[in-house]
């Protein structure tokens, strides 16, 4: 269970989040949608205790992230950028993460196998492709077998096979009672995976509900998205701001 309540954040003179609030519930995959720069990553960073909000609270399993004693057993996070030092091996990266939360070392090989990185585990992260880096980050998120997964743009850099495997994994986690929150600006990739949708634009939540509720009378989630956000809609090419 993830609860974001009235979260606001300024950076310099710019208001990047304004009273953002939503929930991600157990047993469901929640898609957090918005154009680039809408505030998705900022919200997730506050949820994970990386950034401090100017107002509001973000709770995981009823507690602020910073209060979790062994966070990896509660929340697995995949953040933009991979989060690994390039001169360490994939296995070396996962080993210190496992040690930090007192997880058994055998678990490292299990998650490497789970994401298909066993062969590359002894290679330096700097030599990984973008997709391999994402899979390593996913492996790190799964180390503690947490009931909550938070993923920032998880499909970026994945090949079609990787996207399919991720989709199956996320659906399975939710089916087992897990809470999955993933952000994306790729609406098409998301429509088949999510149960609930939160749409954010310019730092404000502009729509939330089940996939059917948010899609509403529109032809599909993509049309709904462009109608709800400042995106200029399909046909103009970039989906950017006017």
């Amino acid at each position, binding site marked *: 269970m993830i609860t974001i309540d009235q979260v606001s954040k300024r950076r310099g003179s710019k208001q990047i989040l304004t009273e953002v609030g939503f929930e991600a519930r157990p047993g469901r995959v929640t898609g957090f949608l918005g154009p680039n720069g809408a505030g998705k990553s900022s919200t997730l960073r506050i949820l994970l205790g990386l950034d401090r909000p100017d107002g509001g609270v973000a709770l995981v399993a009823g507690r602020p*992230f910073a209060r979790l004693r062994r966070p*990896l057993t509660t929340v697995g996070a995949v953040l933009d950028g991979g989060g*690994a030092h390039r001169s360490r091996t994939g296995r070396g990266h996962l080993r210190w993460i496992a*040690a*930090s939360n*007192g997880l058994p070392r*055998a678990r490292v090989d299990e998650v490497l196998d*789970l994401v298909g990185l066993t062969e590359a585990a002894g290679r330096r992260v700097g030599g990984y492709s973008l997709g391999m880096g994402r899979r390593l980050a996913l492996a790190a998120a799964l180390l503690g077998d947490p009931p909550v997964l938070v993923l920032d743009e998880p499909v970026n850099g994945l090949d079609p096979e990787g996207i399919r495997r991720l989709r199956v994994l996320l659906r399975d986690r939710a089916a087992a009672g897990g809470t999955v929150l993933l952000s994306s600006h790729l609406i098409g990739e998301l429509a088949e995976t999510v149960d609930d949708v939160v749409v954010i634009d310019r730092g404000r939540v502009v729509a939330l509900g089940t996939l059917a509720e948010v899609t509403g009378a529109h032809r599909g989630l993509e049309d709904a998205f462009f109608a709800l956000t400042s995106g200029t809609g399909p046909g103009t090419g970039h989906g950017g701001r006017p």
Partner: protein
Amino acid sequence: MTAAARLPRPGASGASGFSSHSGTSGPRVVAGTFRAEVLKLLTLPALYLTAAITWAVAPLLAVASVSAAAGEGNGPGPGTDPGLAPVGYAQAGFVVLGVLAAASEYRGGQIRTTLTCVPRRVEVQLAKAAALAVTALPVAVATAGSGVLAARAALAAHAPPYGAAGPVDAPGEVRAVAGAAAYLVLTALLSSAVATLTRGTIPAVTVLLGHHFVVGPYLAGRTALTAYLPGTAGLWPGGGTGAGEVLGAGGRWAVVTGWTVAALGVAIVSFRRRDA
């Protein structure tokens, strides 16, 4: 029942059950934080390279300084151990060691991984300092020790009065090596604090080496205040001359330790406050 028993089997993408939100005891959690920081340092190739170069260069410099002193007919002066002369240069290696250890967190967004593993920021920084001290200590002892051994061998090769005519003062040398090693560890810690503030390798190395090797020595002959700067006061707290004319050995230790503790304190406060 172990956590591993309930983890999904390899190959199965689904989860049969999830980890419990186990409320483990404090000391074990902190020990995990420390172990993770040690593992990080031990898996960084750049740190091995820096340590190896620092250690290898120390005896060469020791021999060179003995030869230079003997060649000039000065001999090693009272209170200076030629084996420890290279400590001044070895501190450059420990500056790099400390900076790399801290700045490596800011490559590839690793700091965000660190904080999603251990959100308690003060604990993270204290574990980092402890891990750096523990890993830098053997390198420091090896560096200072090999310098002394090389210098003794070089002295023996010279004729008296510069040769090793007198009895070897073993307890004195052990004390000198211990002092030099402690100073080098403090140098690494101070450097890691600066790199935590700058979050980058280049600015931290520039500031520290610039201070230790350019600004400090430049000011040394001009103002007595340099006695209170970390690098020059530290040259070297175990014994020696220069800034030591103003401060006694105890005072110099206090200055170096004080700077290190203060820098670590400022780094922790900054790290605790800022967005990661």
